[in-house]
């Protein structure tokens, strides 16, 4: 085999290309103890070491880095080989205290800080829409999680749109991609609900879901967010910040998608009920109409009867009055005729009185007659002649 002879720059470039081509090295975490820590020009330069080796690290923009020499940390990032210096550096994207204890402590500290700010407050939780048409899912485009979400959604509603924003869900860059997903869906008018989902994992795996940046992105989101991260027992800050926390990605899909078939049945039932009530109301109205019209008819008949009675009574009164009048007149006539007839001379004679005449002249006083005079005595049924034998004057 022929030995290649290269210039330094050729060699270094060659090495760099090999390193850059190794995908494994572009997203990796390394842990070790911090040493030689210094900050220069806003960037942090330090080494991490263990008993046998040392790795030179650089963190661009060190404002959020709170480490010091002696700390055990995990750095997330990628390897970079500088052609010019021939040195290898680890470009740190994120550094955190190594081990569960440290991570958990950071988790609790951050949680407390954000709670104080009100980012997890119940009052700011948004209602999850009951009838979402389009759902945005921020998760890894490969793996069981998205398959489960789609499977559950399709089972419940074949018409719900599921839009996936592919995102890393662990490791370097995951946090930024999750945040970008939320921002992306917030820009889309058609998105009704956002799901952030990931399967279960260790606290380190779930680290991107426990970051302040993600919490703030969720807080800022105008669309309601469902967090279906990890298993039932896993709790992340993403869960606390979201509008609804569900135990698994499948449940997130279950909650976000409404049951199409159930709704169709519900609408059919509703229509039946409405029809029933309308028909019942119509029937009631008809009965009311019938009874009212009967009542009106009854009232009319009564009024007619009353009018007839009034007419006949008036007629009877008039008849009575006319006959009373007639009777009164007849009575008056009878009374007069009886009075008249009582005054007739014949009537007087009938009672035994007599009328005396002398020489054709009616005698009404003893002074007009003398003893021995012959008089004519008129009775009711004839006359006699009499001679006066005595006389007596009552007035003397």
């Amino acid at each position, binding site marked *: 085999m022929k030995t290649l002879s290269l210039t330094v720059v050729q060699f270094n470039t060659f090495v760099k290309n090999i390193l850059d081509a190794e995908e494994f090295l572009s997203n990796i975490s390394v842990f070790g103890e911090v040493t030689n820590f210094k900050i220069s020009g806003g960037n942090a330069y330090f080494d991490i070491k263990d008993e046998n080796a040392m790795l030179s690290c650089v963190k661009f923009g060190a404002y959020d880095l709170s480490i010091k020499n002696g700390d055990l940390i995990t750095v997330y990032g990628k390897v970079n080989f500088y052609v010019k210096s021939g040195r290898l550096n680890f470009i740190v994207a994120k550094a955190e205290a190594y081990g569960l204890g440290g991570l958990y402590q950071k988790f609790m500290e951050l949680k407390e800080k954000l709670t104080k700010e009100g980012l997890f407050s119940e009052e700011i939780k948004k209602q999850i829409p009951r009838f979402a048409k389009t759902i945005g899912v921020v998760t890894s485009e490969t793996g069981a999680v998205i398959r489960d979400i789609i499977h559950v959604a399709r089972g419940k509603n074949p018409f719900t749109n599921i839009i996936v924003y592919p995102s890393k869900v662990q490791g370097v860059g995951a946090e930024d991609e999750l945040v970008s997903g939320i921002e992306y869906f917030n820009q889309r008018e058609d998105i009704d609900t956002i799901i952030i989902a990931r399967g279960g994992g260790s606290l380190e795996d779930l680290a991107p879901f426990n970051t302040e940046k993600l919490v703030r992105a969720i807080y800022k989101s105008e669309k309601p967010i469902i967090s279906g991260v990890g298993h039932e027992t896993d709790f992340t800050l993403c869960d606390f910040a979201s509008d609804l926390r569900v135990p698994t990605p499948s449940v997130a899909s279950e909650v976000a998608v409404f049951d199409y078939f159930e709704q169709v049945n519900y609408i059919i039932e509703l229509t039946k009920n409405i029809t029933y009530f309308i*028909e019942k109301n*119509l*029937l009631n109205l*008809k009965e009311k*109409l*019938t009874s009212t*019209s009967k009542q009106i*008819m009854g009232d*009319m*008949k009564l009024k*007619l009867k009353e*009018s*007839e009675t*009034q*007419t*006949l009574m*008036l*007629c009877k*009164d*008039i*008849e009575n*009055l*006319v006959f009373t*009048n*007639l009777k009164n*007149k007849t009575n008056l006539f009878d009374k007069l005729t009886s009075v008249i007839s009582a005054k007739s001379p014949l009537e007087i004679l009938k009672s035994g009185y007599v009328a005396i005449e002398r020489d054709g002249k009616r005698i009404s006083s003893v002074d007009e007659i003398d003893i021995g005079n012959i008089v004519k005595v008129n009775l009711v049924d004839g006359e006699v002649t009499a001679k006066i034998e005595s006389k007596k004057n009552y007035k003397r």
Partner: protein
Amino acid sequence: MTFEEAIEKLSGIKDQLERPDITLDESLKLYKESVDYTKTCLDLLKSTDGKIAVIKNELDALVEKPLNDIDD
């Protein structure tokens, strides 16, 4: 002449007949008039009754119709 006008006339006749100085002639004349007004009243009532019967038949026909036939 309406029913109410005829009734009014009958009431008037009754009032006149109640006058103590009514003459026999007047009484007879009023009696004859009262019969005419009574006839008018009863004729009007009878004709109203007939009209009510016609309207009632129309209403009965409407109400008895099944609901489905009404909507057109």
